[in-house]
């Protein structure tokens, strides 16, 4: 006679045997060391579902892994004393040498909730090419990108460096490393070079040296700085960029040190306000001082302030200008008209109210002036689906925002397969 306990064991074994035949593939927890191809596996699924291989997509703001490459970058410092001094940092590893990072990059991961927010820590076996290129390729393949325009992390703050000339040392080293060491590897990776405008002559030299260099898409001013961009000392720089048919980008960053933001006690507040505040100040100076009238062919791009601020600033400046036009005598049109001819990046796209987003996109002529940016691998990155899935844009506008506007802005070559598609559509 079979005892009850034995019967239970037999049933349990039967169940386990049945279950073993149904074993499903399982997915691991994503942590700080997870391969970015795994982190972005759903991005690939989205790309496949939307047939993004048939959509020309340019990500004009992804962040290169300059933090890991910092020791290499330090070797490109020209000044022998500063280059040697870099070796004294972090136990001789050069990691973080001369950084003046404000609390910003360190707060990306929302106190451990977003593992990749502390930078991608994954393994890269291929040592024959820079790790940064491998990471770019992984992201491009998963998101379905044709080009990725990269920008550094550590340099976002050096416009505020207490040692003014350090901006020049670090910018020169980064630009050389990027152009000579990274942009030569994969034609899909493009770069925006850093303009150290605390010294206008050094910025002009950067333009002279790198205009037309392979892989260089344009030039960037980091917006976290106290430098009135309408100052007369910058006119030569802007003239050079206009003459060379180069785009000028202003890349936002957080700032917790300025007097007003120093009152904020949470990083959510700092991020929400100061990524916008810096570009609000610079764009206002750019418009009110009539820079679009002085340099009508110079294309400007405003990066990583999102879009919601544009509904505010277009209305605000128009309203004030009509009452105080004597203070902005170079303007011949409303401020909003100049703003609607500038370029803006999508990310981080505020999309909790579609009516407001649609009105904002209308105000800035999004179908021709908006360009997609992911900001990968930062914590508030946007995928191409963020544009493709918008309910109020037609497909032509979506394709422009995802790729063709960027191609126009940066003079990027559109791959032949898309040119054929465009011809077929005609």
């Amino acid at each position, binding site marked *: 006679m079979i005892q009850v306990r034995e019967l239970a064991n037999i049933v349990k074994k039967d*169940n*386990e045997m049945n*279950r073993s035949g149904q*074993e*499903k593939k399982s997915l691991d927890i*994503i942590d700080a060391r997870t391969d970015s191809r795994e982190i972005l596996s759903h991005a690939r699924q989205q790309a496949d579902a939307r047939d993004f291989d048939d959509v020309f997509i340019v990500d004009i703001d992804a962040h290169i892994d300059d933090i890991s490459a910092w020791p290499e970058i330090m070797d490109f410092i020209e000044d022998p004393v500063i280059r040697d001094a870099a070796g004294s940092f972090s136990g001789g590893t050069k990691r973080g040498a001369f950084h003046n990072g404000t609390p910003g990059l360190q707060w990306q991961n929302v106190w451990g*909730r977003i593992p990749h927010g502390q930078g991608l820590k994954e393994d890269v076996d291929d040592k024959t090419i820079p790790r940064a290129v491998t990471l770019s390729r992984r992201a491009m393949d998963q998101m379905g990108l044709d080009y990725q325009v990269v920008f550094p992390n550590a340099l976002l703050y050096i416009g505020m460096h207490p040692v003014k000339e350090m901006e020049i040392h670090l910018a020169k080293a980064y630009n050389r490393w990027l152009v000579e060491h990274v942009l030569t590897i994969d034609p899909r990776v493009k770069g925006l070079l850093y303009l150290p405008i605390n010294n206008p002559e050094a910025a002009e030299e950067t333009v002279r040296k790198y205009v037309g260099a392979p892989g260089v898409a344009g030039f960037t001013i980091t917006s976290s700085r106290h430098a009135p961009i309408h100052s007369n000392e910058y006119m030569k720089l802007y003239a050079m960029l206009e003459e060379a048919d180069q785009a000028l980008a202003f890349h936002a960053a957080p700032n917790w040190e300025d007097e007003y933001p120093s009152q904020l006690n949470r990083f959510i507040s700092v991020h929400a306000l100061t990524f916008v505040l810096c570009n609000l100040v610079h764009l206002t100076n750019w418009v009110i001082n009539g820079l679009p009238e002085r340099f009508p062919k110079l294309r400007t791009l405003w990066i990583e302030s999102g879009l919601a601020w544009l509904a505010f600033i277009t209305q605000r400046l128009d309203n004030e200008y009509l009452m105080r036009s004597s203070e902005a005598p170079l303007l011949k049109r409303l401020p909003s008209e100049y703003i609607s001819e500038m370029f803006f990046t999508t990310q981080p796209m505020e999309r909790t109210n579609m009516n407001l987003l649609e009105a904002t996109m209308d105000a800035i002529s999004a179908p021709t002036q908006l360009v997609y940016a992911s900001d990968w691998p930062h914590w508030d990155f946007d*995928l191409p689906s963020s544009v493709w899935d918008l309910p109020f844009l037609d497909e032509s506008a979506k394709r422009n925002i995802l790729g063709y506007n960027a191609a126009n802005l940066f003079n990027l070559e559109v791959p032949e397969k898309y040119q054929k598609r465009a011809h077929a559509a005609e």
Partner: protein
Amino acid sequence: MREIFVANTDEIEDRERKVIVDGDLEIGVFRLGEDFFAWENNCPHSGGPICQGRIMNRVIENLDENKKSHGFLYVDEDVHIICPWHGFEFNIRTGVHPGDSQAKLNGYVVVVRDGGVYVEIE
């Protein structure tokens, strides 16, 4: 309607999960004490792999009777799953975002039978 075997009950520890793949479907099954909950591995924000994120308690502001703040507190009974892409948090029992009742995870019925955990699929 069909059932998918996920794991034996003792294979999923308290405050842990197993994320399985069934064709195009990815489902995370979570254990809180003796209760199991199943959610689609797809964040309603932008499609991130929500079930593969960190499990943490809900955070609340520590206010005293005079409405003065004394920082943060964890709420042990409100356990959240956090999307590793952007940090969206959802209560593992309800599947609802703590600050937006409209933001919800897509759930499945869990069946615990004979020491095994199953989810029902339409």
